């Protein structure tokens, strides 16, 4: 198990090198010289050439890449072209925001999925509307749901603040009240897809013989459901959670924009608009790492639930 985890982490290195090169090459060939973007439309060719020389944009891509990665390995991701901040300074404060939103959203989606689709009481009461909720969750675009929620809960009912981010230090209540709506917005989509996966698995698990055996022991239906059907049905959801962290960043971009959250997603949108090459690259790497770590974690969780499969 430990050796497997070490191996997986070591395997990330060639992965990251390949992915970053691809990212580097695509971004630079798409955007062309960042100098033009930095200097604006009135810049003369001489000015652009001078800036290209200053930043080294006139060198071949492979050289630029090697130069960049050599710095990156030392933790230096360069400076943002727009704010002249170091990339680390720009990026690091945004990570906890996005991470917190994402983790809450996934947690909420998983808990709601399991609750609505396996507790016998909840199944009876909520079952008829879960399909509708799931389909709404999948089909409605994030930004629309976000705006609807703001309209209902912040503008009309005035229960929650409209937008913005308040750190934990400003008070737990204030912090949570600000993140509820974005978390729900992000979770809706996951709730939808998890429900559709989980429910079919749950039904399949319920048809298996060990369910009859569990009943024959004299267990309550709740116990049969939660101890015997649930762990079997949750397995594909575990894999799915691992796979969905990549797309989650996409969801976070929109949600963070709608709710003005100072997260990675909003930084990313800003960086694209400004052709801010170093920031885009650093975020790219962050996402690659995030997806790989999430897959590793979901594999570990999977094997700890299902002992028939072992890492190694």
């Amino acid at each position, binding site marked *: 198990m430990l050796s497997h985890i070490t191996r997986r982490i070591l395997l990330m290195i060639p992965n990251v090198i390949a992915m970053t090169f691809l990212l580097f090459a695509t971004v630079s060939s798409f955007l062309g010289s960042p100098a033009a973007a930095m200097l604006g439309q009135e810049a003369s060719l001489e000015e652009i050439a001078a800036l290209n020389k200053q930043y080294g944009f006139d060198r071949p891509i492979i050289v630029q890449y090697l130069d960049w990665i050599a710095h990156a390995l030392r933790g230096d991701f360069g400076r943002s072209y727009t704010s002249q901040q170091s990339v680390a300074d720009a990026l690091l404060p945004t990570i906890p925001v996005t991470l917190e939103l994402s983790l809450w959203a996934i947690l909420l989606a998983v808990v709601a999925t399991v609750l609505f689709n396996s507790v016998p009481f909840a199944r009876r009461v909520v079952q008829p509307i879960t399909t509708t909720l799931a389909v709404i969750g999948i089909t409605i675009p994030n930004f629309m749901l976000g705006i609807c929620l703001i309209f209902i809960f912040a503008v009309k009912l005035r229960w929650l603040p409209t937008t913005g981010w308040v750190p934990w230090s400003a008070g737990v209540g204030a912090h949570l009240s600000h993140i509820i709506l974005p978390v729900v917005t992000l979770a809706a989509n996951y709730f939808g897809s998890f429900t559709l996966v989980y429910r079919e698995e749950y039904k399949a698990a319920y048809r298996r*013989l060990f369910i009859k055996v569990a*009943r*024959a022991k*004299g*267990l309550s239906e709740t116990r049969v459901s939660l101890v015997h059907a649930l762990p*079997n049905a949750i397995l594909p959801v575990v894999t799915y959670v691992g796979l969905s962290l990549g797309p989650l960043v996409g969801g976070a971009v929109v949600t963070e924009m709608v709710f003005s959250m100072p997260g990675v997603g909003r930084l990313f949108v800003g960086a694209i608009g400004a052709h801010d090459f170093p920031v885009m690259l650093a975020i790219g790497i962050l996402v690659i790492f995030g997806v790989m770590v999430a897959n590793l974690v979901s594999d570990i969780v999977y094997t700890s*639930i299902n*002992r028939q499969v072992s890492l190694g």
Partner: protein
Amino acid sequence: MTESTVKSYPMPVTGGSPSDGETLLDLRNLSVSYHMAGQQVRAVRNVDINLKSGEVVALVGESGSGKSTIGHALMGLLRYEDKVAVSGTALLRCKDGVTRDLFAISDREMKRVRGNDISIVFQEPMSSLNPLHSIGHQITEALLAHRKLRRNEARERVLYYLRRLGIPNPEQCMARYPHQLSGGMRQRVMIAMALCCESKLLVADEATTALDATVQAQIIDLLKSLQAETGMAILFITHDLGVVSEMADRAIVLYAGQIVETAATRDLFDTPHMPYTRALLEAIPRLGSSQMKGYELRGIPGRAPSAFERVDGCSFNPRCAYATEACRATMPELDMAKREHLVRCLRWKELQLGGCDEFAAARR
């Protein structure tokens, strides 16, 4: 344990009237019908079974004869199926001294009876266990469903049963997962699970069918010694008449959801009155009998009617060599051939079917 395969089993001593003699289960007029494709399909028709404490009764029949349905109905497992109607009464004398009708009590009460007063071992040990939980967890759970025990007490009891079922390294086995055990071991675990609350009635639903012959013999040995030790009654559901002759005090032959013959095992093998029973006996393959004079392994022509089909008259008549016009017109009632020997055949008195001689001889 290769000796088990060649070992012949002694005839059960009880021979139909167990020492206890008290009625444990009185199943009356059980009918089970499924609602399928817009029609009512009767899988079990008016079955009566009386089981005394400590008695081993075999329920014999081909696939689709309704024998497993009876077991599942008794366990209350059909309550969870949609479109299944169970009628009749099943009076079970529970351990607390109260006699309950298993078909009339609430789900809540049934939950207390299941696993405590009546247990079941299913046909497929490979899929009976939840792959995600350890063996120890799954047996302990059965025990704790009915007993208030401390952790270590429960553990001791589970270990006792695992040991009693001949499982090597019971401590290790408790920590294992189902996929790490063989079929025979899993079935032992299932039996330990069924026994751990000391039910007075065990339904063995083809409990040995999926196992290979050697393991089958071991499990049958085990069930016999456990039965002798605990005095529990067993309803042994099987299609294997060899197993019936080894295990059962009494046998009930089912055909198309109906009882067609019931008698003490020896009696049934010696003097079957129903042509179907006789045909079943002829269909048992025997080692070395091919050299015997006049012996022929015969199958039963045709096939059993599916629950969808309606057969006029006796349900066995299309396959019966002795069928007459009368057999095709009237459904025979169960008739008493002698004490504790019932037969559903219009012509049983005139037919001299003869028993399964060498089979009976082997047991004497």
